[in-house]
């Protein structure tokens, strides 16, 4: 059993403590916006926030997330209003297939919280998610648009 707080709601779930947080979120809590891409913390599709920090949820056990505040893509909007990063993603039409974008948005939201006006170099070092469709040009454009809004 594990006790997880996801998007402000507490869930008691029946999992082995070494289950990756990603799969507990997807299969036990039932929120599938957070994606599996590699399972080894390479691609970033599984990025969630734990106590506000971006974390690749495929590579930490559920036991390490107990008692902490977990935010997934489903919890990013507040009171029905999209997060500014989500809105920028719509305005700049960032997603292509969209599969990696939940992780990308979570990584960018965390970056902008730390650095509201990131330089290109900061974007380069902090946003390391893989996107096979190749949306990077629009990702960068949308980040700067949020920063300059």
């Amino acid at each position: 059993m594990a006790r997880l707080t996801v998007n402000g709601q507490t869930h008691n779930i029946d999992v082995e403590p070494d289950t990756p947080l990603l799969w507990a979120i997807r299969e036990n809590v039932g929120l599938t916006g957070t994606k599996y891409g590699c399972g080894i913390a390479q691609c970033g599709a599984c990025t969630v926030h734990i106590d506000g920090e971006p974390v690749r949820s495929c590579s930490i056990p559920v036991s390490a997330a107990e008692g902490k505040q977990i935010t997934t893509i489903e919890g990013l909007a507040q009171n029905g209003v999209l997060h500014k990063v989500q809105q920028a993603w719509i305005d700049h039409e960032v997603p292509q297939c969209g599969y990696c974008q939940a992780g990308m948005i979570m990584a960018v939201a965390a970056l902008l919280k730390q650095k509201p006006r990131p330089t290109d170099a900061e974007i380069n070092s902090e946003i390391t998610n893989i996107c096979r469709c190749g949306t990077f040009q629009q990702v960068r454009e949308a980040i700067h648009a949020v920063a300059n809004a």
Partner: protein
Amino acid sequence: MNMIPQIDRRSFVLGTTAVGGGFAFGLNLPFGGPEVVRAQDGSPEVNAWVVIRPDDTVVIRIARSEMGQGTLTGLCQLVAEELECDWSKVTWEYPTPGQNVARKRVWQSFSTGGSRGIRESHEYVRKGGAMAREMLLQAAANQWDVPASECIVDKGVITHKTSNRSTSYGKVAEAAAKLEPPKDVKLKDPKDWKIAGKSMKRLDTPDKVTGKQVYGFDLKLPGMVNAAVKECPVFGGKVKSFDAAKVSGMPGVKKVMKVGETGVAVVADTWWHAKTALDALPVTWDEGEHAKVSSDSIAQWFKEGLDAEQAFVGNQNGDAKGAIASAARKVEAVYFYPYQNHAPMEPMNATARYTPDKCEVWVPSQDGEASFAAVLAASGLPADKCEVYKIHLGGGFGRRGAFQDYVHQAVLIAKEMPGTPVKLLWSREEDMVQGRYHPAMQCKLVGAFDKDNNLTGLHMRLSGQSILATVRPQIVEQQKGRDPLVFQGVADSGEHAFGYTIPNLLIDHSMRNPHVPPGFWRGVNVNQNCIFLECFMDELAQAAGQDELEFRRKFLAKHPRNRGVLEAVAEKVGWGKPAPQGVHRGLAHMKAFGAYVAAAAEVSVEDNGNKIKIHRIVAATDPGYVVNPAQVDRQVAGSFVYGLSGLFLQECTVKDGRIEQTNFDSYDSMRIAHMPKVESILMPTGGTEPWGGVGEPTICVAAPAVLNAYYKATGKRIRSFPLKNHNITFA
């Protein structure tokens, strides 16, 4: 005009009732009389492409698959343009493959590969929209008892000016659906387009930023179980034995089974449980005859093909061998392109539910009908007892069209658990080692010069793997052993025609097919052919001491559209003018998938040439017509990510008969830090030539433009890939 669907209402109603009414979609016949075909919610179909709800919502049927390339929105724009409906009221749905079969393929092909989504279907989907418009106008005219020619429509509102009456599509759709469709309709001149040709917002964005979009990986069905699968890692091998008892007591495990002769699967309550048990399952493989094959043995075999007597000719004029024999000077080079995996972000998956009376599959597929065929084959059930429901793809890139191995597996597993939906997910590791790989290819090029430095002949000898020999053997058989697709981008005519006129030309292929399963990797064979040809054109120009653009121009007189895109990028990048300090430029162009594409790259190098900084890319695209400029720009920019990831980072090597790379740690992909600024020039020239595609063509010019710039920066000509093998990486 022979692509128009035969909308014969009587025959398709008969056709659909004949299959027993087992398909809910679009066929709820009890509503409103037998002549009206209805969508699931009861709204009338004006025709197969257009359903209109009473609230004026327009539902456009999309047969092709959305996998990020924007085809869904583009096809909706084309239908809506002719329909003259209100774009803000447009939504869409996928007809099912089973329905298409039952209705005599009224939606024609579902195949979404070869950059064909829009270019192959634009005419008949526009006709579908135009015919629906005419029927809706006629229905309103009938209601008012006036000639239809006196009625006009704007954004779905029909008006009869003289009597000052108006109505809306939603109000007359029911009556329109009962009318005979017009025999023919005239399509608008693209100059008059208001919706098509414009950068309308994609219809599928909002759910992709909130986590709501359901991909195959995310599907949930009542009572569903999860499966993980492992195929023999040596292609062609089989399962010898496995010890199910070792894992059957592990948490959540429900079943451990063989899948066909070649794989094993674990079914569990959750996928994580299934995967954990599968990893622990002892399996012994009968690796078969290919267990000793390696990248080196393949390379040696290909190398012999570079000078082999026998080869299939793809393009020939004059006497290239004679010109080379009598040349004052020869230039020769050998290139190599590796195996590569598609690696879409969403690994392969399919969900199946089987009973002896019905087999249903939910799958992210580039070709719903290919999925359907796989369901029939694996289930053993007839077409009227099978159905496929398509889901948006988390990337496709050619892996999810012709190949439906995961559908086959899902059905075989579901057959062992009748009535229970089984979701089969591949791990990234399985996705990497069970690919359908970009074929490996070597190429020897020989150019002949006379004493005045005129190019008098060119021989391009390809040696390597054919995709079609494995995937479409009937085509290769018809061609007496030749694979015509190998010559993409250097063919003698057609959508992949060679872009130069060179005296004494020979392009041929020594076919050598290792056991590694080949596939259509975004861009397919133009990827290697454009590197071979366009890098060698630079080599020839440099050997002749000529400017690379001027040298090419001599052979472009009969290729105005190739020349057009090449000159466009050259001009914009500033070719012939001084570049910033330390920055060097390279060019490439090709006709691919019916479109003309070119790229110019600006690069600098660091660390003695071991690091490449790509400052800027200029790309030009002439696909004839552009349906959504913003989305084409995105396909163009994304093509540099796909193409340059391949150039710098990606190779699948073979050892002991299997692929060595198992995840993104050993098969990396470009990140935002490496992304150059891409300036896209869209320059559609219109005209009557078939439209070109845009999802794939630009990938092929990415690598040679950068390689040609790298040579200018360093004097080093790299001829084998990826660049990581030369310790060259992104700066």
